[in-house]
């Protein structure tokens, strides 16, 4: 691949990021995707739409989120300064709402009164149910039956917000199957239904649209760095499942060649064990859920079941822009194990008084590694994409504690 000067030129008009992305969907979806693409391309340039989005991001979500120097954590590590982008402080407790509020506004402008979504851990489902309530839209969330059992609190939360949660019993009964089912609903009910995808995967325009709505994370962070530190960080890190919080942080920095970008994937019990969800670190190019990207599959091309202690990273594909950034050599993707993430979770809790989501704990673990490699005046900026309240039961159960 020739050296790329401007990383903001992608995707092209076909939704491709180099060899990745695109619209690998059945013919029946081509028209709805074209309708959505046209509407979104118009709205992203519409000052009135952008003002409305900005107003809700400020007054409803609570943006901007701060960057916070985790001094005690940094001192504990004894390396570079670790800064945290506090997406956990957003309304609903994660970056997910940046995207759902954007897409709900698109739905509203397109005149679609019904919202559907897929969810794994339930975070995207809750963020979708939240904005559906906020805008008075009907909301149906598809969730794997296995995940429903694992995430009862989030299921109840969605119901409190007025959403209907539909159990998905096909396949592995997890996130990927929920996504398949939501896609089917959309094909069947496209006239009145808007499908809010929760990550930077799926067919074009979703990887672009979800990225755009999350890119506020990096825009704020870059400006905050220049204002508060007079410089850019040496390295950014964020966890990568589908990759929406990572691309959200990375995107504004893509053309800052001096800033290293490191994505932390879920290495589960270790990549060598096969029980992981590290699509970029251990997968291969293929096609899943409407886009070409790195996927975890067997030699027959069947998508395999993934493992991570964090449900939000438990996905066998990854956003196509990450695949592109990996192959272009612009970003690196490394595995962080369940144990490393849990250790980072506890360390952050005790040194800084912050309970991070298990997903985000992967990024924290990676930040610790990176900080050790850098001199004391170096800066690691880590996306703390969500708060960990939702995970306390999982952690307690894993550690044999009765709550």
């Amino acid at each position: 691949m020739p050296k790329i000067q401007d990383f903001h030129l992608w995707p092209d008009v076909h939704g491709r990021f180099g060899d990745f992305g695109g619209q690998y969907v059945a013919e029946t979806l081509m028209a709805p995707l074209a309708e959505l693409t046209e509407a979104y391309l118009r709205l992203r340039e519409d000052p009135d739409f952008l003002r409305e989005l900005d107003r809700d991001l400020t007054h409803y979500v609570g943006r901007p989120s701060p960057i916070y120097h985790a001094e005690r954590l940094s001192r504990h590590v004894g390396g570079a300064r670790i800064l945290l982008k506090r997406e956990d402080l957003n309304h609903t407790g994660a970056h997910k709402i940046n995207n759902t509020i954007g897409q709900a506004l698109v739905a509203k402008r397109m005149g679609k009164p019904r919202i559907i979504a897929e969810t794994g851990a339930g975070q995207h489902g809750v963020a979708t149910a939240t904005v559906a309530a906020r805008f008075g839209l009907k909301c149906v969330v598809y969730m794997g039956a296995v995940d429903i059992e694992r995430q009862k609190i989030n299921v109840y939360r969605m119901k409190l917000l007025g959403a209907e949660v539909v159990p998905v019993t096909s396949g592995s009964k997890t996130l990927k199957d929920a996504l398949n089912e939501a896609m089917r609903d959309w094909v069947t009910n496209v006239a009145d239904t808007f499908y809010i995808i929760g990550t930077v995967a799926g067919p074009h325009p979703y990887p672009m649209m979800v990225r755009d709505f999350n890119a506020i994370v990096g825009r704020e962070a870059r400006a905050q760095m220049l204002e508060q530190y007079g410089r850019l960080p040496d390295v950014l890190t964020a966890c990568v499942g589908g990759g929406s919080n990572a691309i959200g942080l990375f995107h504004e920095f893509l053309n800052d060649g001096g800033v290293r970008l490191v994505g932390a994937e879920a290495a589960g019990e270790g990549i060598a064990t096969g029980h992981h969800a590290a699509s970029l670190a251990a997968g291969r190019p293929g096609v899943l859920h409407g886009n070409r990207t790195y996927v975890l599959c067997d030699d027959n091309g069947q998508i395999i079941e993934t493992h991570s202690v964090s449900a939000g990273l438990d996905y066998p594909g990854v956003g196509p822009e990450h695949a592109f950034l990996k192959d272009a050599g612009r970003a690196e993707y490394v595995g962080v194990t369940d144990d490393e993430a849990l250790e980072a979770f506890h360390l952050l809790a005790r040194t800084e008084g912050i309970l991070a989501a298990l997903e985000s704990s992967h990024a924290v673990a990676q930040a610790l590694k990176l900080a050790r490699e850098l001199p004391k005046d170096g800066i690691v900026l880590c996306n703390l994409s969500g708060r960990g309240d939702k995970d306390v039961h999982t952690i307690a159960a894993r550690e044999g504690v009765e709550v």
Partner: protein
Amino acid sequence: MSRIDKRFAALKAAGRTGLIPFVTAGDPMPEHVVSLMHALVDAGADVIELGVPFSDPMADGPVIQHASERAIAKGVGLADVLGWVAEFRQRDQATPVVLMGYLNPVEIRGFERFGAEAVAAGVDGVLLVDCPLEEAQVLAPLRGAGLQQILLAAPTTAPARMAQLCEAAEGFLYYVSFAGITGAGRLSTQDIAARVADIRQHAKAPVAVGFGVKDAQSAKAIGAFADAVVIGSALVERLDGAVTAQDIAGRVGEFLGPIRAALDAG
């Protein structure tokens, strides 16, 4: 002339409507796929659509998804499917076989390798559900090897795009008769008739209509204006649970017999 083109030319010459049954390769029994294919031909199939099982069949309904899951659970992969086609070809060189499925298994096998293997096995066409015209450049090695790419058209397809599909169509154009997944039943026959009549005027290939066709009556209604009728979910459902080759062949005959008769009477 390809096997598919020859078959449709013969149908046209005889004034008959084609019957295209779909079965998931490896379901209900991997050891009886070849005898199932012969049974389909004996019951009047003009083209066989053989589904390649995939773990995430996004565009299929629950019936075909479950058939896929059952086949995968029994270890069925693309190599098995190619092997069965080759075995089928030992006795039947005339009936076209189209592999229907999703891109990932083909991409993982390698487009060039798959193209060569499929042609050697006697496959005539591929219908890769998640590969619309816009992405079809990845299939160049398959077409180079001699496989025809069967394209889908839908009620939601916009006019300009329909013109492109008609122009690019080869083998046959597969019109999905309602905007939804396979196996659900919502069918306004008049609507479909009008659209298909228009497409048949412009398409460079015959038009097969499918999705939601489930019995002799619906097949006859569709057969009145289509070049061929595709039957999938209803057949797969009928075969579920059959264990012996004899039982499978019996169910195929019982199910397709009245449909074939209805098409020929129309």
